[in-house]
């Protein structure tokens, strides 16, 4: 796969500009997701709607009838082989990204893990997971060093190129090397939706990373209350 440095720099520049203006980059010291306005006052409020009231308990969550998710066999950041079955019984929040990403990954992962924190004690039933799209670099050791900076409960999954590719196919996630930074760091274009999987491994919801952590928590709360 031929690198296209100029494209990579342009993408990084565009995303950095966008995310910087959004105030969403963790390095910027301003977390817009914490800003909750009354819903009628504009799009900031839209990006940070109030946490929704949970639905009535008792009704089992209905799977999202889209063929996303499924089996995977990977290695977690402690070096332990894991499969999707190992997470059955818990809710999963799955994000595909990579440790060296400095554009959408820090934002998506920050919002996803903040949502888990906002859930409080019920959030202990929710496991946030990063599946790398850069397995050659993101070894268990690399992930073990990187992930605690993001969240103490964030699990990193990696594996052989074939195993990671299989997981990406299950989730209909594509990733492509599109260039590199001036430092030579790869720029990998990849999907940024966050997938909420149920205790049985079925897809429950797809969370766009444009949602605030509060909005994500509201959606997750609904499913927690139904299970």
């Amino acid at each position: 796969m031929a690198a296209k440095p100029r494209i990579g720099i342009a993408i990084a520049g565009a995303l950095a500009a966008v995310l910087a203006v959004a105030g969403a980059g963790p390095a910027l010291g301003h977390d817009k997701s914490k800003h909750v306005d009354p819903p009628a006052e504009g799009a900031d409020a839209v990006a940070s709607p109030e946490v929704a009231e949970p639905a009535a308990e008792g009704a089992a969550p209905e799977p999202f009838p889209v063929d996303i998710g499924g089996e995977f066999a990977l290695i977690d950041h402690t070096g332990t082989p894991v499969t999707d079955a190992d997470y059955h019984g818990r809710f999963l929040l799955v994000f595909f990204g990579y440790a060296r990403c400095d554009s959408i990954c820090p934002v998506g992962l920050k919002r996803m893990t903040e949502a888990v924190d906002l859930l409080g004690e019920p959030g202990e039933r929710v496991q946030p997971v990063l599946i790398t799209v850069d397995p050659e670099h993101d070894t268990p050791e690399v992930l073990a060093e990187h992930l605690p900076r993001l969240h103490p409960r964030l699990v990193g999954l990696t594996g052989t190129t074939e195993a990671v590719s299989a997981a990406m196919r299950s989730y209909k996630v594509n990733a492509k090397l599109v260039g590199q930074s001036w430092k030579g760091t790869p720029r990998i274009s990849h999907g940024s939706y966050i997938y909420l999987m149920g205790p049985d491994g079925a897809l429950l919801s797809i969370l766009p990373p444009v949602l605030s952590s509060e909005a994500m928590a509201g959606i997750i709360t609904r499913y927690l209350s139904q299970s």
Partner: protein
Amino acid sequence: MRHVTRLLAAGLMFVGLSLPAAAAAPQRVQVTGEVIDTWCYITDIMFAEGTTHHQCALWCAVGGIPVGVLGDDGEVYMVLKVGDDTTNVANPAILEIQTHRVSVDGELYERDGIKYLLIDQVVNDEGIVTVNHDDFGIQPFGE
């Protein structure tokens, strides 16, 4: 007026967040509207329509930011796939129609107040019809 319409559209996207997560079965729909970069549009961090924002929208799509269709009905439809492609990341079909006014056929899923679109085909492509860079400049890069 356009700004008000945009805020309304963004508000409509998530107005259903307090509603139950139902609507399991997809609906066959045809949606007409502008292909947008959902990050810049929803967060309202800049004017994210038309020629003003086309360059940014392309790079954001390549960078993995979800692409949407801002329908004439004011709704934002999150695109999950186009045609036979299994993903929407760096999808040439998406990049070729970014910022275009299109009519698409596909399946609509509603979940947690969010509308998701699996596009089967683009049945009409009018190209970029919102020519507004003289009004708003080129965002966020400038000329």
